[in-house]
């Protein structure tokens, strides 16, 4: 079984977030809590789907990752783009946006 993490969209701004080992939501996939087996994965998802969590995130789900140097890496085009932000080199996206910088750093 592939390693898995839990991801969702943050309620407040729809941003992509990941559940870390402590049960907090983080912006960067490298900090996500990794489940190596089915039981851990289900437990992780259970933490994410409480009513309390519904005040923080929308639609949490499990997704496969590759693990390199102990850090999770997204698999599949969709999750890669979720982790990195839009890939388009458009002049329209304002430079210096904090969140975009953080995403670029985590994808590197």
């Amino acid at each position: 079984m592939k390693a898995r993490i839990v991801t969702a969209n943050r309620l407040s701004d729809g941003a992509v977030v990941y559940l870390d080992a402590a049960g907090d939501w983080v912006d960067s996939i490298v900090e996500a809590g990794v489940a190596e087996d089915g039981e851990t994965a289900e437990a992780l998802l259970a933490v994410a789907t409480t009513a309390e969590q519904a005040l923080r995130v929308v639609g949490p789900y499990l997704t496969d990752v590759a693990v390199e140097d102990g850090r999770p890496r997204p698999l599949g085009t969709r999750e890669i783009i979720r982790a990195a932000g839009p890939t388009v080199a458009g002049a329209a996206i304002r430079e210096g946006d904090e969140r975009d910088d953080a995403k670029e750093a985590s994808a590197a």
Partner: protein
Amino acid sequence: MYRYDEYDSTLVAERARQFRGQVARRLSGELTEEQFRPLRLMNGLYLQLHAYMLRIAIPYGTLSSRQLRKLAEIARRYDKGYGHFTTRQNLQFNWPRLADVPAILDELATVQMHAIQTSGNCIRNVTADQFAGAAADEVEDPRVYSEIIRQWSTLHPEFSFLPRKFKIAVTGAESDRAAVQVHDIGLRLRRNGDGEVGFEVLVGGGLGRTPVIGKTIREFLPKPHLLSYLEAILRTYNMLGRRDNLFKARIKILVNATGVDKFRDLVEEEWSHIRDGALTLPEAEIARIRAHFAPPPYEELTGDPPEHAAARRRDPDFALWARTNVVAHKRPGYAIATISLKPTGGVPGDVTAEQMEAVAALADRYSFGEIRVTHEQNLVLAHVRQADLHALWQALRQQGLATGNAGLISDIICCPGLDYCNLANARSIPVAQRISQRFADLERQHDIGALKIKISGCINACGHHHVGHIGILGVDKHGEEFYQVTLGGSADDSAAIGKIVGPAFSAGDIVAAVETIVETYLAQRRAGETFNATLARVGLAPFKEKLYAAD
């Protein structure tokens, strides 16, 4: 343009206030996401890949400069400084925060705008020809009727829970620029034998998973019957449309399953009960709405003033831009200018706040303060004096808005795709950008001539790929992005659904494939032959041969 009366203003303000309450209850937990989701969709608020997306209605694509300035302000204050114009003449913001959306709706309400019915199973934005009220070939301004239909369909109590979304387009010219044949209902204004103006009514057109060309169920519908007849169609659909399968719920499926003649009979039967009743449109009411679309205070000018011809002679870049981006106006001395939102390598349809403000100022200066959004994701200034075109073009150049590619190969229609959209299977924007860059040379583009490329990131076809001369559909093949190509589509009077040319191309190969298709066309075409005409004459074989030769 149409101005809200007290009723309209109250409705929009109330709706914004209502949504503010709904957001508060979602954030506090009083509403679950399941309860909140349909409510936020009723205000055009989607949750996409990276963020919420707010789709703002731009009725029949017409904006005042004041409204465009407000959109720029919202882009700066609440979003990332840009917006995206869509294939239904609406605007999307890609990064609003949930808690800010009520404030955004309040701001929109101050300029008579909203996000009502831009999502959900209801009647959506009623679109129209972007040259409405200005085109030389116009029978009547279609926006008058788009507005009438908008009022009838807004919060219509019977049609708020249709089997699926419902899209209506109206065209008023001999040449259809509103793609009426691929809408759930398409309306064409035309004259009958007695010179009376009425509507040809088409139903069951659409794109998406099952593209269909609409069918005429009524050749001529007199104006007073417009709303009662539409009501009969919607009632028939509401009653009989499928609700068991999301992918079979549009009216096109119903018309196909029932057969167009039987469907017509059903509509006429329903109509027999309600025609000549409360929904009858008196001429006085049409006149009242028409007054909002009165022609601007044109000057008395001579056509083709010498300064315009002189500017074209003097400035070859301007002349080239004018060739594609300027079309004839019905008034002498005026012209219709298209502002391309497809700069080389740019994101099709995206505009920065600064550009929006510049266009608003140019609209005030050169076009009576009015801007149009086209379903091909460009903007139009519809009433520019020919003598002002050169100055307009120079000002547009300052803002990167003077790409002279309207209708050429780099004037690509493209959905947001997997870079933004939750529904997508593949990215679409980078493909558009790379094609645009490959064909950047304007001389080459002119040599190729009119060629519409349309790109969708999934089968929902928001990029209208089925009706592109070259259509590109992003698909997921074993977790990788591939692109299926169709040829011969068209959204104009000779509407057609494109045919698949063969196996899909990888992301690495798609641009070369497009180039091969173009080269094949150029090799095969006879003098003056359009892409579709050449394709009709020679068939797919020469294209397949060149594309898959190495296989």
